[in-house]
C-alpha cells in the first residue's frame, strides 16, 4: 500500500515539479531568534482562510436579496450548526482585525518597514483598509435594522465629501433610497469585489516577504543602511540562517491552532451580535450601532466639537491614510530598536490609548438618549407636595429623563439632576428650561412648547431634589432601583 502511494506521489511530483517549487520556499533561510513576536502576520492570514471557508458555507444558506436576506439569517440562526457557523465567521473576522492590528504594531515598534521592506508596509496599509471594508460590508449583510441603517450611515458619510459625495452615496446604496438594489450591491462588494482585491494584495504581501526576507529581530546600535543592508542580510543568513520550515514555521502553526481553538470556544460560549429587528426603514424603534471594531469611530462622531465634523469626515481618512503611507518614506533607515526610538513607542501608546478611550465611550454612548428608562416612582417626592408629584410624571412624559438621570435612573446626555435643588434656584431652573443650554449642542430650548403649568410642576419637583430632603426619603433604591 505504502509503495503505491509513494509511486503515485513520485509520478505527480515528477510531472508537476511541486517539491521543486515549494521546498525552496519552505526551507529558505530566515534570521534566527524571530520568536513569538513574528506569529501575528500568519495568524491574520489564517483568520482570512477561515473566513473564506466559513463564508462559503454561509453562502450556501444565505439569500442575498433585500426582501429575504433577513428571513434567511433567522433560518441560519435557528439551527445549531448554522448559528455556530455564523459565530465562527463573526469571531474569525474579529480575530482577523485584532491580529492585524497587533501585527501592524509589532512591525512599527520593530521598524520592520525600513529599507528594503517599504512596500511590505504599504501593501499592509492597503490590506488594513480592505479588511475594515470587509468588516463593514459584512455587518451590513446581517440585513437587520442595524444593517440597513449602517448602509444609510455609510451613504451619509460618503455624502459629506463635496461635489462627488452624492455620487459616492448613490454608488454605495445603488439608488436614491435603501431598497432592492442595496443588499445585492453590498453582497457583491463583500463576496466578490473586495475579496478579489484582498487576495491580490495578500499574494503580493507574501511574495514581498519571500523576496526581501523577514526582518531580523532589531538590535541596539545596528542601524539599517540602505545600499549596504541587503549584503549584510545575505551574509547574516549564510552564517546564521535557519530553515523557515520547521525552525520558524512551527510557531506559526502552533499559534494558528491556538487562534482556531479560541475562535471555536468563543463561537460555542459567546455569541455574534444578536439579530435585530427586520430591515424596515419605517421602524423607528431602533438604536443603530456598529460592530465592536468601529465603535471608537462611532464615538468620535458624537464627541468631536461641533463645526469641525465636515472637515474631519472628509479630510480625516485622507490624513490618516497619508500619514500611514508616508511612514516608510519618512524613516526608511537608521535604528530599528524600539529602545532607540522612544517617540515611535510613545506614538503607538498614544494611538492605542486614543482608540481605547473612544472605544470605551462608544460602548457607553452617554450622548444617546435613553429610550428604555423607566418612570420614576411618585414616592420619591415628599408627601403633600401635589405640584412635585405632577412634576415627577412630567419629568418622564416630557422626555427630560431620556437625557437626565435622577437617582441613577435616566439618560446621561445632560447633567445628573439627583441633587439639582441644591445647585439651582427655581428661577435659574426656569431660565434653563425655557432657553436651553448656552453651549452649542447643549440642551434644547423648551420655552415655545412647554406650558406654564408644566414648567411650574417640573420646577416644583426638581426643587425637592435636595440632599436634605432626599436623604429622608431614600426611596428610589427601594422601589425598583436603577436603570439597567
Amino acid at each position, binding site marked *: 500500500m505504502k509503495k503505491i502511494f509513494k509511486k503515485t506521489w513520485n509520478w505527480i511530483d515528477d510531472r508537476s515539479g511541486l517539491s521543486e517549487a515549494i521546498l525552496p520556499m519552505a526551507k529558505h533561510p530566515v534570521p534566527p531568534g524571530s520568536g513569538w513576536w513574528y506569529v501575528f502576520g500568519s495568524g491574520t492570514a489564517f483568520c482570512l482562510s477561515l473566513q473564506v471557508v466559513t463564508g462559503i458555507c454561509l453562502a450556501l444558506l444565505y439569500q442575498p436579496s*433585500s*426582501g429575504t436576506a433577513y428571513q434567511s439569517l433567522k433560518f441560519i440562526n435557528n439551527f445549531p450548526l448554522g448559528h455556530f457557523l455564523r459565530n465562527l465567521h463573526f469571531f474569525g473576522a474579529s480575530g482577523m482585525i485584532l491580529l492585524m492590528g497587533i501585527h501592524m504594531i509589532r512591525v512599527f515598534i520593530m521598524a520592520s518597514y525600513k529599507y528594503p521592506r517599504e512596500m511590505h508596509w504599504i501593501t499592509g496599509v492597503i490590506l488594513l483598509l480592505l479588511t475594515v471594508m470587509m468588516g463593514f460590508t459584512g455587518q451590513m449583510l446581517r440585513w437587520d435594522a442595524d444593517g440597513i441603517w449602517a448602509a444609510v*450611515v455609510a451613504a451619509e458619510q460618503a455624502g459629506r465629501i463635496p461635489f462627488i459625495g452624492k*455620487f459616492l*452615496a448613490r454608488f454605495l446604496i445603488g439608488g436614491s433610497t435603501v431598497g432592492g438594489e442595496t*443588499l445585492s450591491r453590498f453582497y457583491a462588494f463583500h463576496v466578490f469585489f473586495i475579496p478579489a482585491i484582498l487576495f491580490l494584495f495578500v499574494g503580493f504581501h507574501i511574495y514581498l516577504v519571500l523576496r526581501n526576507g523577514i526582518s531580523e529581530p532589531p538590535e541596539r546600535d545596528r542601524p539599517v543602511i540602505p545600499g549596504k543592508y541587503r549584503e549584510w542580510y545575505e551574509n547574516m543568513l549564510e552564517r546564521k540562517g535557519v530553515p523557515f520550515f520547521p525552525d520558524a514555521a512551527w510557531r506559526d502553526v502552533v499559534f494558528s491552532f491556538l487562534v482556531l481553538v479560541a475562535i471555536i470556544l468563543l463561537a460555542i460560549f459567546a455569541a455574534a451580535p444578536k439579530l435585530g429587528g427586520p430591515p424596515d426603514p419605517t421602524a423607528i424603534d431602533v438604536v443603530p450601532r456598529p460592530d465592536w471594531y468601529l465603535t471608537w469611530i462611532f464615538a468620535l462622531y458624537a464627541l468631536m466639537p461641533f463645526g469641525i465634523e465636515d472637515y474631519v469626515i472628509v479630510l480625516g481618512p485622507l490624513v490618516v491614510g497619508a500619514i500611514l503611507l508616508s511612514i516608510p518614506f519618512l524613516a526608511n533607515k537608521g535604528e530599528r530598536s524600539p529602545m532607540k526610538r522612544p517617540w515611535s513607542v510613545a506614538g503607538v501608546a498614544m494611538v492605542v490609548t486614543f482608540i481605547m478611550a473612544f472605544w470605551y465611550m462608544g460602548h457607553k454612548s452617554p450622548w444617546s438618549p435613553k429610550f428604555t428608562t423607566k418612570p420614576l416612582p411618585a414616592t420619591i417626592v415628599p408627601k403633600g407636595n401635589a405640584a412635585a408629584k405632577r412634576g415627577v410624571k412630567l419629568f418622564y412624559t416630557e422626555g427630560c429623563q431620556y437625557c437626565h438621570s435622577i437617582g441613577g435612573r435616566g439618560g446621561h446626555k445632560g447633567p445628573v439632576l439627583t441633587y439639582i435643588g441644591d445647585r439651582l434656584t427655581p428661577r435659574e431652573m426656569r431660565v434653563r428650561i425655557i432657553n436651553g443650554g448656552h453651549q452649542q449642542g447643549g440642551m*434644547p430650548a423648551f420655552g415655545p412648547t412647554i406650558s406654564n403649568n408644566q414648567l411650574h410642576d417640573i420646577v416644583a419637583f426638581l426643587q425637592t431634589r435636595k440632599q436634605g430632603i432626599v436623604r429622608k426619603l431614600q426611596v428610589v433604591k427601594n422601589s425598583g432601583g436603577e436603570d439597567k
Partner: protein
Amino acid sequence: MDRRKFLTRLSIGLSSLIAALIAVPVVGSLIAPFFTEKPRVWRDIGPIDKFKIGETSLVKFEDATNRSWSGPTSKTGAWLRRQDKKKFKVFSINCTHLGCPVRWIKGSKIFLCPCHGGVYYEDGSRAAGPPPTGLSQYPVRVNKGRVQILTSPIPITNILGENQL
C-alpha cells in the same frame, strides 16, 4: 520596426484592449446607479381628516422604485405634521448628521436621534447635538381631500448645503 518589436507591441496592445473591453461591463454595472432613472411619484397617505391639527405622526409610503424583491426595504417613513386646516409639513426620518431614524417625543415636542443624540424642534429646526442643519422636508400636497407626499431621495448634507442623491 522589426518583426519581434511589432509582435511585442501587438500583444501588449491587444491585451490592453481585451482588458478594457472586459472592464466595460464591470465598471458599467458598478456605476449603473448613476444612469438609472430617478422617478419621483406622489404617494397617497390618507384622508386629510386622519391627521389632527398640531399633531405629528409617523407616516409610511412606498418608494418610487419598489422592486418585487425589495421586501420591507421598499418603504420609507416620515414625520407628518399638520399645521392648520390646509397646511402640512413632512419631515424626513433621517437625522441630518449621519442618517439614523429620529423619533418624535410627543411630550416635549422634539425629535431625538438614537445614534449620536441629535435633537430637533417640532418645526424640524436643529435644537442640539451634532446635526449640521434641521431636518429636511418632503414636498406634500392635498389632492381631493387626501394627503399626498412626493417620494424623494435620502437627504444628504455636506459643507455645500443639502444635496439630493
